[in-house]
């Protein structure tokens, strides 16, 4: 951590963006549960921390006009996982978030920080991918919306341009109603990253049923497996085995201290099949 480290507390998005534009070495700070250990380990060395937690709109969960939900980047995960609208309409997001770290960590860790950290094992990101979330960002150049599907570029790499600030994550109303499971293997139940994470979601509000298959910790980024979803939408749960094979083909795991690539690939197949059969 640099001894000349400065700490800035803007009260509006505009002020934050201006502070960031004025200093190339600055970093935005949300919960800090990833950033502070990275700074302590010397992997990041910003000269200024721009704390976004005191910007009121970033701390809100708002209903949107299409029946969706906007979750401010600074909302802590513990508040998302118990929010009535999340539990009622987007329960898969709560299901994934509840597996992140442990309960006290989620009192500090934010949904926005989690996606900006872009861990390949980001459990919450799998739900955001599956639910077609849009990430709203702002910079001195203006505002834009990045689909979750094109946000994650690699470990620690996102589509954010230098200086861009993530304001909120928007779940579209059309993604409401998906139910399902997040099947996650880890060495212990709390405080461990996923070895393999598999989300299986289904929405029966339409004919045919809509399906979602998402994967964590088995590729450079969290993944969604569109080919498996299409197969299930065409053939229903009877295609569980085919969907599992498509997910196995889509993943690109590595071997590390949590598990070998072979194990991860096998488990993707097992968990996709299990999830699809359970949801029927």
């Amino acid at each position, binding site marked *: *951590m*640099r*001894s*000349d*480290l*400065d*700490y800035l507390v803007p009260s509006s998005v505009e002020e934050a963006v201006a502070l960031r534009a004025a200093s190339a070495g600055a970093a935005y*700070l949300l*919960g*800090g*549960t990833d950033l*502070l*250990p990275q*700074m*302590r380990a010397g992997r990041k060395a910003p000269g200024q*921390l721009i*704390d976004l*937690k005191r910007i009121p709109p970033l701390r809100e969960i708002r209903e949107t006009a299409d029946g969706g939900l906007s979750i401010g980047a600074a909302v*802590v995960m*513990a508040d998302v996982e118990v929010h009535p609208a999340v539990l009622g309409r987007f329960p898969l997001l709560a299901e994934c978030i509840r597996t992140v*770290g*442990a*309960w*006290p*960590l989620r*009192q*500090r860790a934010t949904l926005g920080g989690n996606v900006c950290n872009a861990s390949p094992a980001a459990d919450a990101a799998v739900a955001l991918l599956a639910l077609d979330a849009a990430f709203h960002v702002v910079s001195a150049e203006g505002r834009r919306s990045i689909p979750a599907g094109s946000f994650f570029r690699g470990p620690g790499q996102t589509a954010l341009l230098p200086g861009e600030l993530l304001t909120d994550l928007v779940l579209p109303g059309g993604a409401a109603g998906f139910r399902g499971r997040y099947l996650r293997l880890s060495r212990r*139940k*709390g*405080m461990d990253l996923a070895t393999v994470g598999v989300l299986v979601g289904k929405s029966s509000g339409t004919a045919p049923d809509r399906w979602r298959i998402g994967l964590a910790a088995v590729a450079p980024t969290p993944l969604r497996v569109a080919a498996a979803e299409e197969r299930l939408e065409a053939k229903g749960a009877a295609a569980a085995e085919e969907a599992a094979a498509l997910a196995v083909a889509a993943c690109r795991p590595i071997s590390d201290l949590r598990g070998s690539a072979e194990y991860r690939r096998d488990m993707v197949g097992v968990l996709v099949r299990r999830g699809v059969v359970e949801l029927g």
Partner: protein
Amino acid sequence: MRKTITLEVNGASETEEVEVGMTLLRFLRDRLDLTGTKEGCNEGECGSCMVLLDGRPVNSCLVLAVEAGGGKVTTIEGLSKDGALHPIQEAFLAHASIQCGFCTPGMVVTAVALLRQNPDPSEEEIRSALAGNLCRCTGYRQIVDAVRGAAAAMRAKAAAPLAVSA
């Protein structure tokens, strides 16, 4: 760089100049001599540095002191009242939930936060809430028993005036 912060710690207002890089954990231990809050892993894995910040349990090694400016912090030292231990502390004694004692302050603080939110947690809920607190002596059985015991005692106490009036 240094910043002046004012925050409330265990009910007392504290104003100090701190380095921006100083964690809330080091601030509590080194500046305020509140050494009940322990430093274990210093990267948010072990929970031994747990404190309440504005009522929420947080790993104080993952919070900068400057971030806590304007906030209210409760440490293990702030839980007893007039020399009387908090019911959760009493329950840890009664259930022999303390071995080496290093994790105990963090365990108690997380349990305080849990029982405020959920006065009657199941064993599964207790284990889930405490999943971020590691006991290096592995005495989890007694710790879970203590939290269950404390929850029952606190509910009984809360219900007592009603029982009398009925």
